[in-house]
């Protein structure tokens, strides 16, 4: 069985539980408890962070949804709201923080910059969307999305959480989850999953340059 299949293998319900409780009701109660106490990680990068703080403040209070406990430590957080432009210098930190969050964990990409690079996409130090490196659950567009838009996105996340089932969820599979490899800052940002591709493309570039050089010399 491949790693991926092993990760999404359904959880085996133990014998003694099979007769006692129907799993769907367990799902409902479990999801109700989880979706009404999602603790966001205090992770504001840029302008969208100010809208996130405005959502946490008294006019659009998101503690009405159970999310008031904003923890700066990733070990105590459930959802990482990536709010703001993701730059190459910051992405190793973001990936490290994502790896440190305990499961079940979710990611919301808030704002155009976190979804797909945003207005700064053409820049040389901007990553074209945080989903290049970490899996994203909900995307919220806007520049910046208004607090009501963010609340709508959080409710969408709650709806997604309510549809999950313990039996098929990837958090409860038997194999341990693999952390995402941390990108390295070299002459440009390097994703360790693409090292082969990088080597190949650089060699092709060098070959093209020497071929040009030979053509010029002739």
């Amino acid at each position, binding site marked *: 069985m491949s790693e991926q299949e092993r990760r999404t293998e359904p959880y085996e319900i133990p014998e003694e539980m099979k007769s006692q409780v129907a799993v769907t009701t367990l799902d409902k109660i479990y999801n109700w408890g989880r979706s009404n106490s999602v603790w966001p990680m205090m992770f504001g990068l840029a302008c969208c962070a100010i809208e996130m703080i405005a959502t946490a403040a008294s006019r659009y209070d998101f503690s009405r949804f159970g999310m008031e406990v904003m923890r700066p430590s990733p070990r105590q957080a459930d959802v990482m709201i990536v709010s703001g432009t993701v730059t190459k210098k910051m992405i190793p930190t973001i990936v490290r923080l994502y790896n440190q969050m305990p499961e079940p964990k979710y990611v919301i990409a808030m704002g155009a910059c976190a979804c797909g690079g945003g207005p700064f996409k053409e820049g040389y130090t901007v990553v074209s969307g945080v989903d290049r490196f970490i899996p994203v659950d909900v995307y919220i567009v*806007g520049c910046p999305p208004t607090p009501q838009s963010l609340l709508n996105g959080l409710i969408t996340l709650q709806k997604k959480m309510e549809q999950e089932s313990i039996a098929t969820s990837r958090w409860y599979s038997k194999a341990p989850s693999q952390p995402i490899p941390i990108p390295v800052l070299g002459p440009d940002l390097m994703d360790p999953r693409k090292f082969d591709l990088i080597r190949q493309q650089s060699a092709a570039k060098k070959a093209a340059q020497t071929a040009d050089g030979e053509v010029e010399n002739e």
Partner: protein
Amino acid sequence: MNGKGILSGLLITLRHFVDTYLEDLKVGRKRYGTAEGIEMRRSSDTRGIFTIQYPEEKLPVPEEFRFVPFLVYDVKEDGEKAVRCTSCGICAKVCPPQCIWIERSVDAATGKPIPTPAEFFIDVDVCMNCGMCAEFCPFDAIRMDHDYEMASYDRHKHHILNKERLLKPASYYAEIRPTSYRREEAEKAAKEAAKAAARPPAGTAA
């Protein structure tokens, strides 16, 4: 007395706390869930907490509010859509992050361009909601929408809006931006009247 500063601060917090419930008692049920309640909580003499209970009550956005753009079409007498856009390309040129792609229609027979877009794409992952496309459109064809509830699960499917998803009727535009709609209709009517006055009356030899 040492500690007076802290105590007076705590009294202010207590006052804020008590004010909320006093306000609720004074105003009664219509403080929450009604439009006038929201306006009361939004005015400058609001007292106490002014939380908007989203999603049960939504704070109405002002007319100028800009989110993602949309294309306006008029409905002709026979029920057909008349897209106002002539694919002049000014919005694509003015857009600061260049998130608008327009494909101009070409007449298949003559090869000449037709003033209507064959396709129109906006990448909302790049759009910065600045409103410059709407500001400089000479045909009142692209305007900024008010709909901000656009969260999605998959950006590759949903975040490049094509012409079909962007087209919305002029009645919707009149609903969300009544002052601008009235002003533009008045300008159009004035232009039509000026043209009619300049034209020679029907029946005289040209």
